């Protein structure tokens, strides 16, 4: 899976330095990560309104902490994910927290409808949302955030070995839930069958 190149990281460091000199220059960092952080919060909380609040609070803290932020050669998103993870964890500890059934959008189809309509991306997102919390988090950070094991381990407060195990278990569960056909095989089947499912 893709990770950031050294050149990408250095370019991002320049964006951070620019934002530290002038807060108006924070916008490119925000635009780069807002979708990722919202998707992460949404898949963890299963609630769009809550995910929006977590995303807003994460970036508000980012702006507030900007003058004190020290670049350490890892993607800025690692820091944002840690803030978002802490905000979600804080809410999960509150009395009355209920883990909702995966529902990724008010107008979004359910998992069966997504499967029937051929919206594979929605089907996959539902399957990820239904994973146990730690597995879900590992998958989101690795494949959604494109972070490395050591960065994920730090965010989750786990060892790198534990992150590898969580990833393995999560993908094993997803293979079972989503079915064995690999993308290439499915595409070939689609072509043979004229696109009907």
């Amino acid at each position: 899976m893709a990770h950031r190149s050294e050149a990408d990281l250095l370019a991002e460091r320049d964006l951070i330095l620019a934002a530290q000199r002038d807060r108006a220059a924070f916008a490119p960092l925000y635009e780069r990560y807002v979708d990722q952080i919202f998707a992460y919060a949404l898949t963890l909380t299963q609630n769009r309104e809550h995910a929006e609040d977590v995303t807003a609070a994460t970036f508000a803290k980012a702006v507030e902490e900007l003058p004190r932020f020290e670049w350490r050669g890892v993607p800025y998103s690692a820091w944002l994910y840690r803030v978002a993870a802490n905000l979600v964890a804080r809410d999960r500890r509150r009395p009355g927290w209920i883990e909702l059934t995966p529902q990724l959008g008010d107008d979004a189809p359910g998992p069966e409808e997504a499967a029937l309509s051929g919206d594979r991306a929605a089907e996959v997102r539902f399957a990820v949302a239904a994973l146990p919390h730690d597995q879900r988090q590992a998958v989101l950070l690795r494949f959604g955030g494109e972070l490395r094991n050591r960065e994920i381990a730090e965010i989750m407060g786990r060892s790198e070995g534990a992150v590898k195990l969580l990833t393995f278990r999560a993908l094993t569960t997803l293979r079972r839930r989503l079915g064995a056909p690999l993308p290439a095989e499915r595409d070939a089947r689609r072509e043979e069958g004229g696109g009907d499912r």
Partner: protein
Amino acid sequence: MIDDIERLDDALEGRPPIGGFSGTVGELVGIAAEVARALAVPVLTDAERERLHHRVLGGRTWSDRLLHELPRLARRPTVVGGVGAAAVTLAVVGIALLRGRSHPELGGAAA
């Protein structure tokens, strides 16, 4: 299983494992690629994107922010009562101040 965990990690990191992939690891790599593609699809609606942009980068005054947030808060009955009371109080104070500015003679008369 430990071997498979390490082989999967090697494969995900782009390091070709010695002896190649097992069938299981190959399938898991395929699922991982599919998950990465699915998670790359943006899920923010236009309305959410706009609200977030205003909340984070809007740089508006507290009163602008309050007006923007009211429709959302209205969906939370426990919150809207308190905010409503505060808004009414602020509106009364604001009107009183404006009246004072618009009609200084009233202030003078009162004094």
